[in-house]
Structures are given as C-alpha cells and as structure tokens.
C-alpha cells in the first residue's frame, strides 16, 4: 500500500520540484534521483507482489471519498486547461468537446459524490500480475526515458533558434506527471480514478506534443486532444451508464457482472470502453493523432508510444479480455479494427522514409495486434497480448531513443541518411539493430507473441484475421529488413561521430537494451511464473502451446544473436580488404564512385525501396478509416438490432488446444546433428543432379554429379578476402539457423519455429549482403526481401493449415494421422508449390540471385561474397533445398511406413517439376511475382482455412 502511494507520489513531487528549480544542474539531480527512486520502488513493488497474484488494498471509505473529490477536482482542472487552450488557439472542435466533457464530468461527480462516503468502494486499489508488469514497464522504461530526456533536451535546446524560451523544466515535469498518472491507471480498481488517470495522460500528451508551439505542433496537439477526447467521452458515458445500471464503479465488478445474468446492462458500456481503449491505442480511424505526435521531441514519442500512453489503451482492453468472451459485438469490433489496423499500417510503413514515421506506423500496427488479441478474449490470446505489450515496449523504446540520438548526431531522421551508420555510430547502431531484430524476427519476443496470436485465432476459427496477420507480418518483414540493411552497411573509412552522445542517453538506451535481452532470455520464466498464473486466475485456463524446450532454444538463439552483434566475435579483421564491385574501375569504394566512359567519374546511388505505387499511404488511410469507422458504427447498430440473448451469447469458439508432441531437448539436438550431417550431402547431390538434368534438357552432357561439391571445395581453398569484417560472421549465423530449422523439422519439433528460423537465416544473408554497400548486392538484397514478403503469407497459412489438420504444431504429430494432410489441404499444397519456386530462387522468380550465368545484377545477393563466405552460402542453399522439399513431403505422411515412400515419390516429382519450370520459363518482373504469390496465398488460404476452421462450427 505504501509502495503504491510512493509510486504515485514520487513522480508528482519530482514534477513539482522541477517546476520550482529550473536550472539545468538542479534538473539533472532531481530527474536522476526521482527516476532512480521510481525505478527502485517499481522493482520493490514487483518483488513484493509479482508472485502473489491478485491482491486488493482496502482504504477507509472516508479517505476514498476525499480522494475521489481530489480526482474530480483534477478532472475539472484538466477540462479548464483544455478549454483555455481551445480558446487561446481558437480551436472550435476542442472547445465544443471540452465543454461537453466539463458538463459530463460535473454531472457525473454530482451523481457519485452526492451519495456520500458510504458508497465508496472498500478496496479501490488492487494489484495482479498484469498490473505489476505494467508497473515495471512504466517504472523502469518510463524512468529511463526521463533520464534520456536530460541529454536529449540539452541538444534539443541547442538546436532551437536563438532566443527560444527554455521550457525544459515544464517538459520534464510533464513526463513525471505522466508516470504518476500511469501508475494510477494500472493500479486503480475504482473506475472513476482510472478515468482521471486516463484524462491526465491525454492532457499531458497534448501539452508535450505542443511543446515547441510551432504551428505544426499546435495543429497536431489539437488533433490528438480532439480524438482522445472522443475516447474520454466514451469512457465517461460508459461510467454514467454503469452508474445508472446499478453496477459498482469497479473494474473487478465490471468483469464479474459479465458472467452473471445482469450481463445485458454491460452491452453498451463495454462497447464504449472499447472505443475509449481503441482511441488511446491509436487504432484506425483514430490513428492520426499518433502520427501527428511525431513532431514532438523524441522522448515524448518514446514515452507516449512505447511505454505509457498507448499502453494504457491496450492495458484496458487486455484487462477487459475476459469480458469479450461474452459480448460478440464488442469482440468482433475490437478484433476487426485491430486486425485491419495491423495490416494496413504495416503496408503503409513500407512507403515511409522518415524513421519516426516508420516507427509510428509500426507502433500502430502492433497495438492493433494487441487490441485484436485482447478482443478475442481467450487465454492464449491474452498470453500473446501480454507478451506483445512487454516486448513492444522494450524494443520500441530502444528504437525511439536511438532514432532521437541519431537525429542529433547526423542531423536527420531520414532512413536514407542512415546509410553506413554501422561505421559512423558503431555502438548506437548495434543497439538499434538489436531493437529492430526484437521487433520482427524469431526468436525475439515479438515473434513468439505473434505465434501465440496465430494459435489463438486458429482456435477461434477467425480466418479473416489469420489472413490479415499473414499478410501484415510479411509486410513487417519487408520494412524492417530494408531499414536494417541501411544500418548494416559498413563504410570503410567512416568518421565516428559517436563522441557527442550524452551519458544519460547511453544509460537509458543501454539499460533498456539489457532489459530487452533479459526479457527474451527470461521468457520461459516470465511465462511460467507470471503470465500463466495470471491467466489461470483470470480465465481459469493455463495455455501450454509452446514447449519449454522450444523456449529454451529460442533464449539460446537470442543470446547468440546478441553476441554476434555486440561483441567482436567473428570479425575477420585479418582478411584482406577489397573494394566493392562497381562494374568498372572503382575510384572510391565508400562513396561508390567509379570511372565511367568518356573519362567521367560517376557516383552510383541506391535508395531504399518504398513501393509508393503499390502501398499508397493516402489511399490505404482512407480505406482503413472508412472500414474501421464502419465496423464501429455497425457494432453499435448491432446492439439495437439484435436481442440481448444474441448480444450476450458469447463468441464462437472451439477448444483447439495444440497438442505438444515434440521430442524434447535431447531429441531436438539429435535432429540438428542428423540434419547437419545429412542435409548438406543430400542437398549437394540434388544440386548436382539439378545441373545434370538441366543440361540434358538443353541437349548437353552437363557437369559431373559432384560438381557442386568441387565448387565448394575450390571456394574454401581460395584466398581469404572480403569487403568488410562482418559478412562472414552473418553468413555463419545463417547456416546455424538453417541447420537448427532443419533439425527441428526432422526431429518432429515445432513447424512454425522451423519456418521462422529459415526466415531468420534468410534475414542474416540479407544483412550480410547489405553490409557490403555495393549497388549490385544491395539490389539483390532488396529483391530477396521482396521475395520473403511474397512467400511469407503462404508459409504462415501453411502452418495454420498444418495446425488445423493435426491439432499440433509439432511435425511428430504427422505420424499419428489416420490420413495424410493433403486430403484436406489441397489448395494450400498447390500454394506451397507456387511459392517453392520463389523460395528456391528458380526461374521465373530468380530475382535476387540466379544459378545460371549472368543476370543484370551480376550475382545479385552474393555479388560481394568471396571464397569461404560464398562456399557457406552454397552449403546453406543445399540445406534449405532439402528442408523445403521435406515441407512438400510432409503433406503425404500418415501413420503408415509406406507413407514415407509415397512422400519421397512426391518430393522427387516436385523437384523434377521445379527443374522443368526453371529451364522452361523466362524471368518475370518482380511485380508479377509479388502479385501472384499474394493472390495465390490469398485464394488458397481463404478457401482452405475457411473449409478447415469453419467446419467445426457448422
């Protein structure tokens, strides 16, 4: 109890002190001390309550009554602030909304306060695991961001025009008030108090966005307050309805009422609260406030969009998750709005070159995912939502802070200008790369959470959302990978500009990075010790869809990736350095200048790939706003159309708990060893056979069967040279991930993990290629990203189909099937065949790399890889080929030994078919590949998944 008081009070006192003592040195001391105390208190609070479960804190009703008076007074003050600003800047909409809110707040206070102290909740505060997680997020990440702001704002003020007023004390104070309000939100059971915290965050962020007081800032801050006031009014309306409905104004009572016969009272309040949550979480159609908020100084963005403001929105939704099981209208509304927002914002992020806008869109997209998970209302989805919240917070805050610091160092937040940052800001860039990896690849938390999302949507048979998730994730890969590529470029003679980074900035970024790695490594522990008990208590079920051995393996991989990025391991500094290939004489490899014809010196430039014509921001925004607004209106309309039996009848749901039949850790390791020995041999022979068969198709004799082996042996013996010191280390990682993926597959372990690891391997090849900063290799890598984006949806759909057919993600379950999967998965199998050509980089889809002779990209993605590095890439291709063919074969396995013969025959046929296509088709344009791969995935996915997942409901 006293800890809660400390959590709320310390930031408030700090805010007051900051307003009083305005010099920079005083501010530094106050901020660091307050942040430290807040952090320590949060940790102490966690230590005390993390493993205890749900605890309610009693408060004398008189105290509560006084507190409610205070909170009401704060509400009115906030309204006054809004009205004052609305009048000062002549914003009519804000004025109208502010007046409505003032009237609402006063009327509501009249109702509740007039009833006297006797009606106050006896236990207005509570703590459970979810609250503790939020306290930790706010207390640790939030405080770190406050510390970061010291150094950042110093530079910020420096960049302001001379004579600009120094209002940094105000900024710092706002940040601390924000933290305080967040603690109120996550710990109050009393909905009135929660509402006040909610409004404080709204108004604080309004003031922070408008901090610079430029026209743009003012405009965007009003956009923020107007949209969020809609949410606030919805919240207030919900409270008033609850009051009239005779329900206690308590979150716990709200959730309990949903499962009683009184549930009909909640039909509208739950919709209204959902709308409030969606506005705060910046979901379409309200998302524009978050984009506008990017004009604010970067600590604002970091605080608002990673750890506090938007997290308050999704916190409320996750808190309400059990309720959504009862109310289909609200559930469908939240899930669909979240899903549509996820996919559209992921698409729009592709077309952005402003780093902060990319982060903004990705934030909105991820919040959409969390909202959708919360809206499903089952335990698996809530698991996913909680982990998405954790990992999104840590990864995104690192990224925001890094982008802010980078902006001050290089004077730009454009991704194009971050070219070669790996050499200019070595340490910072590595943190940034870690943050990016954390956002989208296995085995970092975000991806595991996405996985849980996939499981929960397969369980509820939500085909539409599964499809949205598949395509959104593919787009996510594309925009992150290309940004990562820009960062990864190693310039040979770069000037290190890292010296000016403040110690406070290093501290904040470093500590959040440590927190992120700790979360990744500790994922099994967090899942078993914290989240599972929470779900057990809230939903009465404890999802186990991921074996502990799998989680352990992932933790090991995270550690491994951290080592690769953060230590000098694998830096082949002794290798001879060579210049990039520019097709002629290169005069300066760093600036990619070369001697052209007629004695001219030319510069080769290479921009990232934005595809504005395929993913136009404006058009997608319109679509999203219209669709989401439509969904929200329809949800409200549904409440008038249907009777209460339907509206409180619960959502469709079939229990589909995944069976865990994986082999356990020893079996898995054995699988990896077997695969590591056999796959290169088989792959090498297949490659040789491929060349032999191709030769015969062209009327030639062709090379010897072992030709690929000779090639690799020759490459291994070549002179060791490289354009930079890191590419070989990346490729080594790629091989290891590929072998792990194959090992998981043949040992009967998790198929989804196998798919993700292969993608991770590809990502590392892509980074290796980007690191050379060669125009040819870069373009090859871009196209490889495109290929991944093209085939990824189909692969995800394939794994969902697998789950539908076997009730498990473990490939070992194939051996227990009575009939092969192909019986029910023909469309998905055909889709897989289509993308297999892309995956094997065979004509007509050999965009990024070609086995044959020339292509216009020299050797595409492998152009800058020499000797041993190239040999490793070849070996990796062999292993990949074997693995992909096994994916084809698995469709024909059932619990009969003969099935292996059948599968082998099908694999042989498929392989021959691929070689045939390769030899008989010309390369197409990438637009064709992307369009048809997605079309095939969409058709195959929709048709097959509807059939698979909807059947049980009929």
């Amino acid at each position, binding site marked *: 109890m006293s800890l809660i008081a400390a959590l709320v009070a310390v930031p408030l006192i700090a805010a007051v002190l900051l307003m009083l003592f305005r010099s920079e040195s005083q501010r530094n001391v106050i901020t660091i001390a307050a942040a430290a105390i807040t952090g320590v208190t949060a940790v102490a609070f966690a230590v005390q309550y993390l493993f205890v479960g749900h605890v309610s804190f009693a408060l004398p009703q008189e105290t509560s009554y006084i507190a409610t008076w205070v909170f009401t007074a704060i509400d009115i003050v906030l309204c006054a602030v809004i009205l004052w600003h609305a009048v000062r800047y002549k914003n009519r909409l804000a004025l109208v909304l502010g007046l409505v809110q003032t009237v609402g707040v006063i009327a509501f206070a009249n109702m509740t306060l007039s009833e006297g102290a006797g009606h106050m909740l006896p236990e207005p505060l509570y703590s459970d695991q979810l609250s503790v997680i939020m306290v930790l997020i706010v207390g640790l990440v939030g405080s770190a961001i406050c510390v970061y702001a010291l150094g950042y704002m110093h530079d910020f003020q420096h960049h302001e025009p001379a004579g600009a007023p120094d209002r940094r004390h105000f900024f710092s104070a706002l940040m601390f008030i924000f933290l305080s309000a967040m603690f109120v939100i996550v710990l109050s059971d009393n909905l009135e108090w929660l509402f006040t915290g909610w409004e404080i965050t709204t108004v604080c962020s309004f003031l922070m966005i408008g901090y610079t007081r430029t026209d743009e800032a003012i405009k965007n801050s009003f956009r923020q307050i107007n949209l969020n006031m809609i949410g606030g009014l919805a919240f207030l309306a919900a409270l008033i309805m609850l009051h009239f409905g005779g329900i206690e104004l308590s979150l716990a009572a709200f959730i309990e009422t949903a499962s009683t016969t009184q549930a009909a009272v909640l039909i509208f309040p739950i919709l209204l609260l959902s709308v409030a949550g969606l506005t705060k979480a910046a979901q379409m159609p309200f998302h524009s406030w978050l984009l506008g908020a990017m004009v604010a100084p970067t600590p604002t963005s970091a605080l608002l969009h990673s750890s506090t403001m938007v997290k308050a929105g999704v916190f409320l939704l996750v808190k309400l998750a059990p309720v959504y099981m009862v109310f289909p209208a609200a559930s469908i509304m939240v899930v669909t709005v979240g899903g549509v927002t996820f996919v559209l914002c992921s698409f729009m992020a592709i077309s952005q070159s402003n780093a902060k806008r990319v982060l903004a869109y990705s934030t909105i997209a991820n919040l959409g995912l969390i909202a959708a998970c919360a809206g499903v209302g089952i335990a698996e989805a809530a698991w996913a939502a909680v982990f998405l919240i954790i990992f999104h917070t840590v990864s995104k805050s690192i990224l925001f802070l890094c982008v802010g610091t980078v902006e001050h160092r290089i004077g730009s937040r454009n991704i194009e200008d971050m070219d070669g940052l790996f050499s200019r800001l070595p340490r910072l860039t590595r943190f940034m790369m870690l943050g990016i990896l954390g956002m989208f690849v296995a085995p970092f938390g975000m991806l595991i959470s996405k996985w849980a999302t996939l499981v929960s949507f397969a369980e509820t048979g939500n085909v539409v959302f599964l499809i949205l998730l598949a395509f959104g994730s593919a787009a996510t890969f594309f925009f992150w990978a290309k940004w990562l590529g820009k960062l990864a470029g190693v310039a040979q003679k770069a000037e290190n500009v890292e010296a000016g980074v403040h110690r406070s900035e290093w501290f904040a970024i470093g500590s959040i990075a440590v927190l992120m790695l700790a979360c990744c490594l500790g994922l099994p522990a967090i899942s078993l010790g914290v989240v599972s008990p929470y779900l057990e208590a809230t939903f009465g079920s404890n999802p186990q869809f991921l074996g502990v051995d799998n989680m352990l393996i992932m933790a090991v991989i995270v550690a491994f990736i951290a080592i690769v990025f953060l230590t000098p391991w694998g830096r082949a500094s002794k290798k001879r350095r*060579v210049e990039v290939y520019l097709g002629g004489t290169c*005069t*300066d490899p760093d600036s990619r200048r070369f*001697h052209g014809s007629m004695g001219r010196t030319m510069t080769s430039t290479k921009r990232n790939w934005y595809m504005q014509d395929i993913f136009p921001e404006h058009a997608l925004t319109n679509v999203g706003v219209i669709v989401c607004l439509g969904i929200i209106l329809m949800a409200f309309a549904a409440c008038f159309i249907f009777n209460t039996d339907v509206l409180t009848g619960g959502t469709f749901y079939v229990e589909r708990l995944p069976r865990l039949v994986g082999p356990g850790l020893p079996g898995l390791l054995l699988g990896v060893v077997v695969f590591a020995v056999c796959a290169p041999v088989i792959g090498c022979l297949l490659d040789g056979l491929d060349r032999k068969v191709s030769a015969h198709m062209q009327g030639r004799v062709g090379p010897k069967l072992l030709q690929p082996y000779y090639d690799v042996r020759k490459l291994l013996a070549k*002179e060791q040279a490289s354009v930079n010191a890191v590419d070989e280390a990346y490729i080594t990682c790629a091989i290891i991930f590929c072998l792990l993926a194959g090992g998981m597959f043949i040992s009967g372990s998790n198929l989804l993990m196998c798919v993700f690891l292969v993608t991770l391997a590809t990502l590392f090849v892509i980074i290796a290629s980007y690191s050379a900063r060669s125009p040819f290799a870069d373009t090859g890598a871009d196209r490889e990203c495109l290929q991944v984006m093209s085939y990824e949806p189909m692969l995800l759909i394939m794994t969902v189909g697998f789950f539908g057919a076997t009730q498990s993600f473990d490939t070992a379950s194939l051996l227990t099937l009575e009939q092969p999967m192909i019986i029910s998965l023909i469309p998905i199998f055909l889709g897989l065949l289509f993308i297999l050509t892309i995956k094997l980089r065979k004509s007509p889809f050999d965009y990024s790399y070609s086995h044959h002779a*020339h292509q216009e990209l020299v*050797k595409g993605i492998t152009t800058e*890889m020499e000797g041993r590095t190239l040999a490793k890439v070849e070996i990796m291709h062999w292993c990949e080929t074997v693995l992909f063919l096994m994916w084809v074969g698995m469709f024909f396995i059932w619990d009969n030994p003969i099935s292996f013969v059948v599968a082998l025959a099908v694999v042989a046929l498929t392989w021959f078919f691929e070689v045939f296509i390769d030899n008989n088709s010309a390369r197409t344009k990438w637009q064709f590949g992307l369009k048809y791969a997605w079309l095939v995935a969409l058709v195959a996915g929709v048709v097959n998944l509807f059939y698979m997942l909807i059947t049980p409901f009929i």
Partner: protein
Amino acid sequence: MGYASKSPWLIHYDGSSCNGCDIEVLDSLMPLYDLERFGIINTGNPKHADIFLVTGSVNHQNINVVKHIYEQMMEPKVVVACGICACTGGVFRDCYNIIGGVDKAIPVDVYAPGCAVRPETIIDAVLKAVEILDEKAKRLAAGEDPATIGKPMPETPNAPVDERHAAAEATAKAGEAKTEQPAAATKQTNE
C-alpha cells in the same frame, strides 16, 4: 588434381577489339560446346571468378578496367588472352590509342592466338589455364605467393596500380563540377 581445376569459373572482358573474338567466346559458352562439362561457369563477377578471359587489346581507356577486374579476383587466378589482339595488339598495335596486348596491363598465363580465335582454341586454352590454376592453388595452400608462376606484373606507361586511387581522385575533384552525373549511369533502381 586439386579442386581448383575441377571448377574453373570465368569472367570475360572485351577490350579494344573488332568484337570477333568476343563473339567467339560467347559462342564457345553456348550449349553446343557444353563448357559446363568441365565445371566451367561464366560468372560475370570477378569476385567469384578463377579465370579471366580477355579479348581485344589494351588501350588507355580500358587499361585500368582490366587491372581492376584482375585485382578484384581472388587468388588463385589465371589470365587467358584470347585472340591475337589480346596477345599482342594484333592489327591494331600501331594505332595511336593502343598500348598493346593484355600482358601490358596484367600478367598473362595462357595466350590463345587467332583472328578471330576459334572456340576450340579457347576451350584448349582454358583447359591449359586450369592446369596452371591447380599449380597456383598448390602454391597458395603451401603458403607461397601464387603470383610467382607466370610473368611478373608488367611495367606500363600508366601510373602504377597503387597510385591509381590518388590519380583518379584528383581527376574526379578536378572535373567534379562539369562531369559528375549523380545517379545517372549505374543507378540501380528497382524497376
């Protein structure tokens, strides 16, 4: 026999020539002659190549290109001069702009004469080059300098290789204003 000779990958550059030999080289890479029998692949990338096939003679324009491609190839590597122009300058040897055969720029291991050189001669020369490649691979594995086989780096009228960057940079700076064409020639767009 080592592995170097079993998988000779080549790159082809056409210098100052009538393009006859150029066509013949492409010809010999056609399915009819099936060079892949010997593991030969036309890579088009010096970093992957073991054998450098040069046709045509060396002039002041292309000498740096020839040298640069040679430099970017990894040891062990061999150079085959295809056609009489590449060997000696051929009919063009007295032209004002011609420096001479390829050996004026880089060390040549095998000379394949002919005007134009016939595919059979090219294949013969490549197979000859493959033996040298093996020998060089052996030297490299033993820790010796593979360049000791074949002729040493020739003296040329141009600036030595090491000074090339400095010279090129100077030219670039001098002509920056009028000659620089940002993003014009090799802008690798994604279209």
